[in-house]
């Protein structure tokens, strides 16, 4: 049960930056087909860098915490920064250990964000 650290439970219960972002420059949807988790990501971009991220979605504790923590982490990142951060960065951010069966949950928001720069 190492996934259910305090920080994950905290972000799950009190998700940060949840909601719509009026005037967003990009809106993307991402889904996990096997479990039905959905996320909608809104970002404002200035000079090719993310200046603000908000999100809406239904998901498990891991995907919710992943989106919540990422929404704080990505401010100031451009495409290269985000790619460098990578799935490894997501795992680190979530506490350093995610079981392989839950990687799709952990990276749901991250995969959505990658689409922002497509």
């Amino acid at each position, binding site marked *: 049960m190492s996934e259910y650290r305090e920080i994950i439970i905290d972000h799950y219960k009190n998700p940060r930056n949840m909601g719509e972002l009026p005037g967003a420059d990009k809106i993307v949807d991402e889904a996990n087909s096997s479990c039905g988790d959905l996320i909608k990501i809104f970002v404002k971009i200035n000079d090719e860098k993310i200046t603000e991220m908000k999100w809406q979605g239904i998901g498990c*504790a*891991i995907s919710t915490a992943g989106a919540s923590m990422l929404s704080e982490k990505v401010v100031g990142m451009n495409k290269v920064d985000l790619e460098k951060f990578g799935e490894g960065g997501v795992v680190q951010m979530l506490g350093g250990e995610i079981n392989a*069966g*839950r990687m799709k949950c952990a990276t749901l928001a991250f995969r959505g964000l990658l689409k922002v720069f497509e």
Partner: protein
Amino acid sequence: MFDVNKIRENFPILKRKIHGHNLIYFDSGATSQKPEAVIEAMNKYYRETNANIHRGVYEMSVESTRLVDETRTQVAKFIGAKEEEIIFTRNATESINLVAYSWGEENIHKGDAVVITKLEHHSNMIPWQELCRKKGAQLRVVDVNEKGELEKAKKIEMIEENGLKVVVGGWSDLLDDKVKMVAFTGQSNVLGTETPVEEIVKIVKRKSPGALILVDGAQMVPHMQVDVSKLGIDFLVFSGHKMLGPTGVGVLWGKKEILKKMKPFLFGGDMIGEVKLTGATWAELPAKFEAGTPDIAGIVGLGAAVKYLEFVGMENIHNHEKEVLQYALGKMRDLEKEGLIILYGPDAETRGGAVPFNVVGVHAHDTAQILDSFGIAVRSGQHCAAPLVTSFGVMAMVRATFYLYNTKEEVDYMVDKIREVQKVFA
């Protein structure tokens, strides 16, 4: 005498520890565990017999061919069929695709209709969706009530999207002369709903006499006595790995006169009669539908699995599962009354060994992972039946499924640990 403790001794994997706990395997709906007899039969085949079938005149090839033939005979006897009506495929999904491609291509035309139900696994839904889309045929879907039982009559709903016309309603409204195929599950893989196969066959014969009937037996054949000679259906499909056999082998049973008229699905070796540079004739049944070298060791394993199931007795297995199910539903209903969980699915009388649920306020994946930390293997997600799961207003469910090796003590343990799930999020 059915003795679950003796049965458990035959399954080596049940001795495994998971995160320091005894394994509680509640995911037989996804795949069953294998008894020593099956593992040993496959081992023995590779150690002593391995040779290709229908090829050599030498001893080992003859033995291999005989082993495959014997399994075909066993499987035929197991479901009340003739040997040449048993086609070995990879799994139930491939069996359905075989029918949809081979029979469907020739027999479904613009304006025809195919009937399925909302209970279907994606494997018995997508092949028909795609066939109907391609042919300009209509897909009709029998809806379910709030318990997950098939509706007899219901207000018709029409959906047209992506070039496909879908009509949702009850049995009585969806059957008419346009219907050429009725494909439905014998038991829901999500809710455990046992569909009234005989009753459905009767109404199909009356209202759509020209339609063929395919039953998805993936969740049925492993758990109860099935006799196709008495059911009045045309096709039955199932997977070996859900009935104690290995992965890689499935079965298509079809009525001989229908299979004979169907064109081959896959072309190549072993399915031909005479070959010239300009073409070929097809082999007789069942070879016509078995192109290429099959999973011989898998077929040998399936034979051992059928032998094991018959030794224990399908009626004993069915009764044991019902007993565990009834016990589990009782315990789970108590949790539901406490407001801890939400249960889905019909009453025990019309349900096989499946209990889908959600812990209130906790996502199915989180519940499943916390249960795993206590050694309990349950499935979570949409169970390859997204339209059914989401019709209950949730994106995912946790599902515990039972088989002949599960016990009431295991149920008690799971019920106890479901309480722990809520504590993590308290």
